């Protein structure tokens, strides 16, 4: 039955996360925006509370998923709903939290039982991007060479979220560059392994509470078992294509959560801007047609509409994942729409509130700086458009480049 309100259980998840966001994250937003690269000790408590909530939530989630063919509102939906709230609190602080990142998602998705037990809930960071390789992640140059019972890694990784504080790294490396993307595998590297070194922390426009590190691997030796997935190289081109496709599919699960980050930051800006505009007597009542109201009011309606559209696309993508429907197109749609919405909404809210929006005395300018990265990481706007376009038009990546 078509019904687009979230379940009571998920509403509770949201409400609880909003409490944490409002009282335990937002008060430190400005502090760690100013004190870039300082460890936000206040978040340790939030992480503990979240971990408790997660283990409580996952047991009941599993039970409902087991019930025959009924519709499921499960973990993927809970993730985007909770994440929206935490990103409303503070995107940077959220991104810096252990066990919430892409590294954990990868280990959970493709790790063996032993790997999941050992590293699944560790503080895991993901190392994909290199100085010469961004969106074209099939082109990475970091190498992994088998030497006895070990893999030897060499290369440089950049833009590693939480690379500084993480204790586990998931590193993409190639077994043989000449074989292209088929030879790309991911490896688990424990921080502190000789040869693995954090060389730099980026100084960024936004999400300053989240560290972004450059990490080099120089003859870094890890146990042979630390490869994620099979070490085999598929014999034919078809098999190799499939293997990389599997790696990339991790993103289908992580794009809706990133879209949810844009929902959180966008909502934060809308909430704050509405508050400031109310003080000036602007009170949107959703009554007269948008062309018959003041420009400010009309703009608020448009921004709210954009936000709502992005929210529903995100819920749909997560709902499809919960119900085991392939959602690659929808995951990219929600990331594309939410990414550009978050940026547009936050920038317009700054403009609507004029000097108050631009001033560091409020948080609107910070939201506008933070929002930009959401339209870039986990696949830029343009990469999402490519994916959606290829699906709609039935094009291969060699036809639509």
């Amino acid at each position, binding site marked *: 039955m078509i019904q687009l309100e979230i379940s009571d259980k998920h509403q509770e998840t949201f409400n609880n996360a909003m409490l944490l966001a409002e009282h335990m994250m937002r008060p430190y937003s400005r502090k760690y925006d100013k004190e870039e690269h300082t460890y936000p000790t206040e978040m340790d408590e939030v992480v503990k509370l979240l971990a408790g909530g997660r283990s409580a939530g996952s047991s009941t989630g599993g039970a409902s998923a087991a019930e025959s063919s009924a*519709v499921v509102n499960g973990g993927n939906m809970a993730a985007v709903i909770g994440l929206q709230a935490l990103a409303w609190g503070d995107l940077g602080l959220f991104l810096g939290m252990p066990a919430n990142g892409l590294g954990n998602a990868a280990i959970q998705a493709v790790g063996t039982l032993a790997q999941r037990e050992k590293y699944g809930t560790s503080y895991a960071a993901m190392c994909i991007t290199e100085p010469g390789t961004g969106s074209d992640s099939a082109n990475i140059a970091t190498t992994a060479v088998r030497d006895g019972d070990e893999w030897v890694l060499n290369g440089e990784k950049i833009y590693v979220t939480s690379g500084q504080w993480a204790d586990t790294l998931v590193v993409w490396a190639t077994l043989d560059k000449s074989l292209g993307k088929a030879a790309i595998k991911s490896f688990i590297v424990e921080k502190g392994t000789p040869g693995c070194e954090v060389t730099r922390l980026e100084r960024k426009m936004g999400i300053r509470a989240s560290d972004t590190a450059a990490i080099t691997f120089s003859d870094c030796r890890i146990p042979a078992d630390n490869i994620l997935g099979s070490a085999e190289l598929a014999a034919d081109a078809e098999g190799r294509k499939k293997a990389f496709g599997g790696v990339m599919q991790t993103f289908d699960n992580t794009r809706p959560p990133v879209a949810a980050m844009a929902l959180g930051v966008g909502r934060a800006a809308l909430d704050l801007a509405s508050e400031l505009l109310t003080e000036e007597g602007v009170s949107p009542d959703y009554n*007269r047609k948008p062309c018959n109201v003041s420009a400010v009011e009309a703009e608020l309606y448009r921004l709210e509409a954009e936000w709502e559209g992005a929210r529903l*696309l995100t819920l749909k993508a997560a709902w499809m994942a919960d119900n085991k429907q392939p959602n690659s197109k929808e995951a990219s749609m929600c990331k594309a729409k939410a990414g550009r919405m978050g940026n547009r909404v936050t920038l317009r809210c700054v403009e609507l509130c004029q000097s108050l929006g631009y001033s560091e005395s409020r948080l609107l300018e910070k939201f506008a700086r933070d929002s930009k990265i959401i339209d870039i990481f986990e696949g830029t706007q343009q990469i999402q458009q490519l994916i959606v376009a290829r699906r709609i*038009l039935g094009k291969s990546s060699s036809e639509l480049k």
Partner: protein
Amino acid sequence: MSSSHPDRLFDLTRTDDQRMSHESMQRFADSEIRSIARSSDEAGAPPVGFYDKTAELGLALLSIPEALGGAGMERSPVSSVLNIEDLAKGDLGLALGAVSPQAFVNTLIDQGNDAQREQYLPLFCEGTFVAATTALMEPRAMFDPTELHCNAIEEEQGYVLNGIKCMVPLGMDAQLTLVIARLKGQGNAAFIVEGTPQGMIRTEESNMGLRTLQLATIEFTNVRLPLEARLGHDEFDLQRFIDLSRLGIGALAVGTCQAVLDYVKDYVNERVAFGEPISNRQSVAFMVADMATELEAMRLMVWRAASLAEQGLEFHRPTYLAHVACGEHAMKIGTDGVQLLGGHGFCREHPVEMWYRNLRAIAILDGVASA
């Protein structure tokens, strides 16, 4: 959001009934609507007998009580928007014409009194098309449905109606017209106007688009209506009427935009320039991707608002936002549809220019196609 709905789950699955009518509506839109859309646009009217065919779909009688000859199904704004969406894939104007009687019927069920229901609803259960419609809009710049100029004065024997309504679907032929007006001293009211009483003048409009629909401007000069003509007993719930209509208008937008996307998708894949299909170019492909993305967002917003209405929950704000989104993005999809076909899109041999003209109406229409 604190009210409790223990079994409520987010779900995008159609019911079995909705799946079945999805198939039949799509079939009807393909074979009976799309096929005559262009010729009707040129002729400024559908072929004779078109609306009688739509009567076979039985849309108007679905929620009429069995005692009055209807199907007696529960009012379902969700099913309504799904049906309208499918029909509009054939043609926006013809779809709107086909569901105009439903708007009259739904409003009567919603806000009429028993006597009115018993008098009028059986007419719609005889298997023939009854030209019934709703008249809300008025011809002036900055028109807003919250401020109607058309007015009625109550007298001992009935009402006297004055004012001008425009963009009235089926307005030239309607046997029954529900006219929304200000009732002096009593707020908004709706009046059932039968046929063409003295002082009521219908003029066929000629608009940029929706030419298949034969929209009419109707002028009322001291039109006298009996006391029973006033819908219901209390003040007319104009907000609810407008909101339900905006669900229908949103569905019209979604269906038409789906037609644009499907058409453009095939065209850019087939059209070759510089030695390869133009869809191999990002500037083209990204426009198609954005169309698909915004269309899906529009659809989900309309569905959500309709579902809230169906559950008897507050649906005003979500409806307003869906209307804003559809008004903006439907036009963008319409204009991009023409753009992607280039000069061919500007010529009438392709339907995209017609969709462009029709979609301009989405942000303007109000008070029609009530879900």
